[in-house]
């Protein structure tokens, strides 16, 4: 981690936080959901955002 990131963010720069892996779905559920990681599972809610 560099210092600048601890103090604050720089302008004109994009940031993505690192994932810290702790828990996982069992293999068959992971396949069905499209990810092994519960914290990355963001399913599409049909109807949301549709005008």
């Amino acid at each position: 981690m560099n210092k600048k990131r601890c103090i604050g963010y720089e302008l004109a720069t994009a940031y993505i936080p690192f994932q810290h892996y702790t828990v996982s779905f069992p293999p068959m559920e992971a396949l069905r959901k499209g990810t092994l990681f519960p914290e990355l599972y963001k399913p599409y809610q049909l109807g949301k955002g549709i005008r």
Partner: protein
Amino acid sequence: MDNKRRNMLEEIQAVGFVLIELNLYLDTHPNDERALREFNTYSQQLKRLRTQYEAQYGPLLNSGLSPSQFPWKWINEPWPWDM
């Protein structure tokens, strides 16, 4: 395709998928020991599942990574898009 074959294949797809996910995670987290241990364990499990499947239905990998019985079984139907 019969149900038994479908189930075996789906198990391979599930374990294979866990390995794809851990592989991508490790690419950006090469020092995560626990993830790497899991990767190696699932990798062994995939090898076993693959060997069982291939004994009944023929090779899953080309380029000499799966052995074939006689006659050459790689050409066997069905191919993935027809399964």
